[in-house]
């Protein structure tokens, strides 16, 4: 047990980012993830990095944009309203083909809402958000340990594909404490400055220019086609899912993050009652693991999508299964997190006793 430490999620995720080679953090306080910037403000100077408290989330994401252009591992984090303010910046970063990581500790909405756990920024993260056609890889860890581990992948994939990677959690993961182990440590001295980075020419035979502007429509379309080709590649290779007790399952709950975790308890209770329930847990919500879920067509009698939102994840499930399996839905809003029993009740209401 000696390698495990008991940490708050928001701090553990920050340390996870540092272990993944992140040395620059720009952010603005917002509950429920204040411990992330606070931790960064203590730790980054210790590891030769820099923490900057920006004047706003708009400034944060644009500072991230600048640092990303310099080819370093950089991140910001915030919660729902703050992430809304970053949408223009995220669109610019995506349109400029530079990498960064953005964490959203989602809270109750819309508007100011409250600081309780929610998953209602799903659409924003995977569909809309900023302007134009762009995608970000979106990881949705369901435990602190998984979040810490995924941060390594987040930075690796951001660099590999030169794109924004989002990590979406909720206040519950951010605020809770669990033992966590830091398994991978990226040695930042091995990270090379990419050749496209704007770090000064220093003898390079040409100037590097990073922009999301292409005035000519044909040129911008070509640029978009490049981005689309990249996204298609990512869709093909990077979607991930956890399949829990699916071997003999008659029914599956489809849920991610905190809800998936609570659903595991539901499944335990259901199985004790003789209902063969399993869990399909998207680890990436974009790319959505549609292929993996589709393998259950013909095997399942039904799925229940469970989310802390109103039919957002559900749309992706609909797109994936398109009426080929009966689709149930159960969602809560405003920061209310249903317990395992409530989920079971919803299941039984929609699918009877599961026979």
């Amino acid at each position, binding site marked *: 047990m000696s390698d495990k430490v008991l940490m708050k999620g928001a701090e553990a995720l920050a340390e996870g980012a540092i272990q993944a080679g992140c040395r*620059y953090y720009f952010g603005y306080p917002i509950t429920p993830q204040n411990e992330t910037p606070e931790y960064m403000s203590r730790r980054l100077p210790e590891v030769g990095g820099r923490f900057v408290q920006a004047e706003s989330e*708009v400034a944060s994401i644009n500072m991230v944009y600048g640092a990303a*252009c310099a080819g370093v591992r950089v991140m910001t984090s915030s919660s729902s309203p703050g992430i809304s303010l970053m949408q223009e910046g995220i669109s610019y970063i995506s349109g400029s083909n530079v990498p960064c990581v953005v964490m959203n500790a989602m809270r109750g909405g819309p508007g100011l809402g409250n600081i309780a756990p929610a998953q209602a920024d799903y659409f924003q993260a995977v569909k809309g958000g900023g302007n134009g056609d762009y995608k970000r890889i979106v990881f949705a860890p369901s435990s602190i340990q998984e979040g810490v581990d995924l941060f390594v992948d987040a930075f690796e994939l951001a660099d590999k594909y030169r794109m924004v990677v989002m990590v979406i959690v909720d206040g519950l993961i951010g605020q809770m404490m669990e033992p966590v182990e830091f398994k991978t440590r990226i040695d930042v001295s091995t990270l090379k400055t990419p050749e496209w980075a704007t770090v000064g020419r220093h003898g390079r035979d040409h100037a590097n*220019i990073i922009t999301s502007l292409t005035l000519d429509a044909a040129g911008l379309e070509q640029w978009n086609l490049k981005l689309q080709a990249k996204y298609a590649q990512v869709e093909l290779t990077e979607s991930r899912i956890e399949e829990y007790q699916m071997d003999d399952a008659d029914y599956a709950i489809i849920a991610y993050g905190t809800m998936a975790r609570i659903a595991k308890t539901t499944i335990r209770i259901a199985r004790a009652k003789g209902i063969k329930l399993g869990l399909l847990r998207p680890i990436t919500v974009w790319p959505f693991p549609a292929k993996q879920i589709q393998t259950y067509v013909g095997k399942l009698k039904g799925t229940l999508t469970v989310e802390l939102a109103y039919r957002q994840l559900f749309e992706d499930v609909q797109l994936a299964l398109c009426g080929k399996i009966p689709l149930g839905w159960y969602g809560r809003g405003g920061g209310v997190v249903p317990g395992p029993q409530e989920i079971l009740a919803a299941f039984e209401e929609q699918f009877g006793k599961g026979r």
Partner: protein
Amino acid sequence: MAEQMKVIYERPRSWANKVTHYCPGCTHGVAHRLVAELVDEMGLVDKTIGVWPVGCAVLGYDYFNFDSVEAAHGRAPAMATGIKVTNPDNFVFTYQGDGDLASIGMAEIVHAAARGWPITVIFINNGNYGMTGGQMAPTTLLGQKTTTSPLGRTPQANGFPIRVAEMLAQLDGPAYIARVSLDSPVNIRKAKSAMRKAFNAQVRGIGFSLVECLSTCPTNWKLTPVESMERVRKEVMPYFPLGEFKVVEGVL
């Protein structure tokens, strides 16, 4: 005894030798040239990163031989901060119009100035939004007609204009703040020397620097280039006096 040609003025080396998209007589070109000359003279081409605005100078990056990035509208100071923090030895400047810097980007410029970290800002005050077709800017003078103050700016309908240099000079952060004008050879010479101080404030690690340049927009002012220069002297300077508003020790 042979005759040889001595160079009085040649195109700067850090100038990428393209024809700009600026309107005839627009002093954006003059400001660009001064940047290029100083980058040459101070030997900065290898370590410069230019941060370009959304505004008429949006394509600025095409005209220089150093690394550049294109910021979101108003956010150049934030982006520059991100760049400077990762590579403190580089020379990082932003180039911003008055819509970009003084309207949408007000929070970012105030905070960059307040932080006082060494980045340099070239601020083009041409009294309107050039790129989008001549709308009112925070620097539009009272009485001035623009496409969004069609009857002439009034405090009641449009609010008062803002003197950015004076306002930022109130802060503890900045090392150097000046207002110059690009209306005549003599003022252009002075502008260059102010810009040199501003560059120096960064190169010597002293702190944040900003040079506000009174500039023209003949197209939207609906004046000839020569009349525009005249207008700068007669109408703009009385409200926007030239001068150095903050010079901390060590800036030269």
